[in-house]
């Protein structure tokens, strides 16, 4: 009952934030120079005033901006995201087509980053000040300092061209018509390069965070207590240090997971990954307002969703947060 109350409360808050984002994003996107009618007309081959008027009228672009905003907010309130100007299809369909790809990419990258980053961070912290720590810290710095798209290009050249081990781009072997396990394996092969590339940067972040967090927890009183109790080192690390140190990492990480979804534009571009980030960037270049806005709203909603999950995860693993008590 109280959990429900809590979730309801958080949802109300989320809706307020989302509403704000709708308004802000709407105004921002409308502020971009470039008339979607002109773009559409230009695409359609040649431009005439009548065609542009018709497009404007069709999408309500001829009304005052305040009225457009009111209409849009009203639409969003009933979960109507409208139609893409360019593709003449409901934007929600367009996003639904692309979202799984983005989620697959980002979540894989996220899991790689979290797993590798946390293990390396813990290793560094256990050997703090000695060579494994130095090596891991330097490696994390290198990952952090190299532009992501640059690593992507290099990875393609190396692993897809010079050593043709992995596919360079796309999400599947087109035309192979694979099914079942073969299809999964095929997608996995396509996933390796982009997910690793995207993951590298985040590995660096998690290494840093984990290292700092573990070093901090290592010195806390209850760890000393555990030692005084004669608990074996292995268990001290697992039950006492890691569980406490990873708590904030896990929550912080789930917050970032939301952002990853919106931040994969570069990776999707470099690896021709058919995801939402690229969709949004193309929508911007085509002034497809409805589509771009919907991507903003959907990704923001995802961030909020991940925040909520983060809270729940935190509450689940940290007894200090009172679950409805």
């Amino acid at each position, binding site marked *: 009952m109280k959990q429900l109350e809590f979730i309801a409360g958080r949802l109300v808050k989320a809706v307020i934030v989302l509403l704000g984002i709708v308004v802000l*994003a709407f105004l921002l996107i409308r502020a971009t120079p470039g008339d979607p009618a002109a773009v559409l007309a230009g695409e359609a081959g040649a431009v005439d005033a009548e065609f542009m008027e018709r497009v404007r009228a069709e999408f309500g672009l001829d009304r005052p901006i305040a009225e457009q905003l009111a209409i849009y907010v009203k639409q969003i309130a009933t979960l109507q995201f409208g139609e893409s100007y360019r593709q003449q299809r409901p934007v929600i369909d367009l996003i639904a087509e692309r979202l799984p790809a983005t989620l697959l990419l980002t979540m894989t990258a996220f899991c790689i980053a979290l797993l590798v980053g946390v293990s390396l961070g813990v290793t560094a912290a256990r050997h703090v000040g000695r060579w494994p720590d130095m090596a891991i810290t330097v490696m994390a*710095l290198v990952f952090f300092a*190299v532009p992501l798209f640059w690593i992507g290009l290099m990875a393609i050249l190396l692993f897809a061209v010079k050593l043709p081990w992995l596919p360079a781009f796309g999400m599947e072997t087109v035309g192979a018509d694979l099914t079942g396990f073969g299809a999964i394996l095929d997608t996995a092969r396509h996933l390796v390069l982009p997910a690793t590339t995207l993951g590298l940067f985040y590995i660096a972040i998690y290494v840093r965070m984990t290292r700092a967090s573990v070093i901090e927890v290592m010195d806390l009183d209850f760890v000393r207590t555990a030692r005084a109790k004669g608990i074996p080192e292995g268990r001290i690390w697992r039950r006492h240090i890691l569980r406490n140190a990873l708590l904030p990492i896990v929550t912080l990480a789930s917050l970032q997971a939301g952002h990853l979804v919106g931040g994969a534009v570069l990776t999707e571009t470099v690896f021709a990954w058919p995801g939402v980030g690229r969709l949004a960037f193309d929508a911007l270049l085509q002034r497809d307002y409805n589509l771009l806005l919907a991507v*903003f709203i959907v990704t*923001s909603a995802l961030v909020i969703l991940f925040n909520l999950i983060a809270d729940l995860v935190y509450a689940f693993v940290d007894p200090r947060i009172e679950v409805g008590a």
Partner: protein
Amino acid sequence: MIEVAGRLVRNAIGLAGLIFLALLIVLAIAAPIIYPGDPWRMVGSPQLPPLSPGFPLGTDALGRDVAAGVVHGARVSLLIGLVSSLCAVIIGTCLGAVSGYFGRWVDDLIMRFTEFFQTIPSFMLAIVLVAIFSPSIGSIVFAIAIVSWPPVARLVRAEFLSLRSRDFVKAAVVGGQSPLRIIFRQILPNAFSPIIVTGSLMVASAILLESALSFLGLGDREYVTWGFMIGAGRTMIRQAWWLSAFPGIAIFLTVLALNLFGQGLNDALNPRLARKGRA
């Protein structure tokens, strides 16, 4: 402060970062002397490989000197990095300070506002902002600052929350000092070290962000930046690797140096942690 400088000097890694940055800044300032004139000028034959006579880093598709580009690019990349970080730090510090100091509804309001900016996918927001104002140094700096300030605000708020309950702040209140004076003269100086560390790391992120925007074709074409050089050179990566390799290395080294410097600074400002690190 002298002590901090001393500790920084003793921290070999931080020192390495500092020296590299100092050299880079000297190079950036001296760019017009080393490579006078416009770096866009076509001065040699197109696509000379590195170590060609007169062109140590080669030339590009139009016969422009890559070395001149890298040196002039340092100016703009560093400038964008520094100015946008400075803006982000100022915005974040002001909001975070007010939020943390006054608490209650002010805090609530500012934190909702901050959350809001943290919820919108930041890279997309940056892209849209640059598109709105059309790519120019100003709009890029603005966009980077706008997407970068929330972490600073949160950090400063947290610092203020912990500092404002310190007794010296209470003493200042009891002594009749005004809130503004307390924020800026009493608390802020004590929150400087984490802000400076965050700021130095933010410069690195800003340089990366600018290069990413440039990569997507959203750079200011008036100026040569490293990000632009990579973006322009990457399509020719198979014909002329040096076009994107050298600016890439420049970004890498700079970001690395900034991180090393930031970490060194962090250790120097928090001797407790540094000692722990060595223990």
